[in-house]
């Protein structure tokens, strides 16, 4: 296969993943819901792989095209030497275009640098925001040890159960929540919140949301961002069910859910959750059978192919750079 054809196929595969990804994830939800932690990995991985492979498109094309000289001769020579050292398709012919080759390398590098900086800044901003919010919410909270868990108790009549990142306070329950829950329900809520902390759900949410802030225009990324919270909740629910039993968890959800001002159908951000599973339906009416298995297989295969092609482009460049071209 010529690199030109490969680049064309890769562009189509990336476009298909970006546009059809949400639809495939929705189809895969009935199967993914049975392994929510795996689902979280798949969702997160799909964004990283898509992005990494998209950034490989320019370097791949650089092996196959020639363009006008824009660099001074010595720089152009060094650049060409590196390009040749990395190029596994040297024997193939090249296509002459109006695009300077250096642009195909510089543009992805610039996008990587800009995105890396923007995501890091966004992560920092979220950290600060989270710390500030935690400080405000937990200002008057008191520490208590409940059923073996360290909990901050807020003096608030509303039934609130929240989890902040550990370093910002961890699990917080309101006095209203404590009053509404019996012992088994409380155990379910605490196990659920503990799972959020142990499985680093704040970190996953933070990273994906920070990436999505700049890449939400890609339908796949928007769908991943929307579906992720549901899988995180289901993962935490599973832990709570193991610890306290499904009835206790369901009962706790009713007690806290019916007081959290239920909303009429259609007023939730329905479109945003379209790619995700339904947490409550899975809890009380778990599906069985092979539904969703084919889409999972299709998504996984597609991602693997993208990852392999992406790595096959990035690695030769990396090795060439390490070996001094």
């Amino acid at each position, binding site marked *: 296969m010529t690199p030109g054809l490969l680049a064309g196929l890769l562009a189509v595969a990336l476009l298909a993943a970006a546009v059809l990804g949400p639809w495939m994830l929705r189809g895969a939800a009935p199967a993914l819901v049975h392994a929510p932690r795996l689902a979280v990995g798949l969702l997160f991985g799909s964004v990283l792989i898509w992005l990494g492979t998209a950034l490989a498109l320019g370097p791949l094309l650089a092996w196959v095209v020639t363009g006008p000289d824009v660099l001074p001769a010595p720089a152009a020579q060094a650049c060409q030497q590196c390009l040749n050292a990395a190029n596994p398709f040297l024997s193939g012919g090249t296509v002459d275009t109006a695009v300077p080759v250096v642009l195909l390398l510089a543009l992805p590098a610039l996008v990587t640098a800009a995105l890396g900086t923007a995501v890091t800044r966004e992560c920092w901003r979220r950290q600060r*925001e989270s710390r500030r919010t935690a400080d405000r919410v937990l200002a008057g909270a008191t520490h208590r040890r409940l059923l073996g868990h360290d909990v901050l108790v807020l003096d608030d009549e*509303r039934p609130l159960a929240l989890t902040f990142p550990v370093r910002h306070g961890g699990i917080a329950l309101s006095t209203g929540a404590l009053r509404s829950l019996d012992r088994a329900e409380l155990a379910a809520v605490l196990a659920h919140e503990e799972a959020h902390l142990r499985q680093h759900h704040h970190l996953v949410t*933070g990273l994906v*949301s920070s990436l999505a802030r700049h890449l939400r225009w890609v339908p796949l990324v928007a769908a991943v961002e929307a579906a992720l919270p549901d899988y995180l909740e289901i993962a935490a629910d599973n832990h709570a069910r193991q610890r306290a039993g499904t*009835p206790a968890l369901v009962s706790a*959800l009713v007690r806290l859910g019916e007081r959290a001002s239920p909303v009429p*159908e259609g007023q939730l951000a329905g479109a945003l959750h379209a790619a995700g599973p339904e947490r*409550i339906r899975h809890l*009380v*009416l778990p599906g069985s059978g092979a539904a969703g298995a084919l889409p999972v297989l299709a998504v996984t295969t597609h991602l693997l192919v993208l990852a392999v092609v992406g790595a096959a482009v990035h690695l030769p460049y990396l090795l060439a750079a390490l070996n001094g071209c």
Partner: protein
Amino acid sequence: MSRRTPHASDLPRLGTLEAQVMDVLWDHGPATVREVIDQLAGSPAYTTIATVLTNLDRKDLVTITRQARSTRYAARLSRQEHAVSLMDQVLEASRDRTASILHFVDTMPESDLALLRDYLSARGPGERS
């Protein structure tokens, strides 16, 4: 962004001294600058507390009543009301996912609540496992 909601940074932020002064007003009711100073440890300067109260007025947290030659300051909301309104705004902000807060259950549609209730009633009262 269409989903953007008020940030925690939009809330009136209380400094340490501001919080102490609000505590005095909440614990002892309306007070003059001098009365506030008497309740605070370390006897801060009159101008310092007068400035703090002016700032709290600017943040809409106190009301000012002028009687004869004295000016009395009172908390606009009770401590409980203030905590609730603060929490309301913070919870609202947290739904934007800008702050890393995970809710056990946030808003739940009636249909989901009905599913949960059906599950419990199908099991019968008192069944736990």
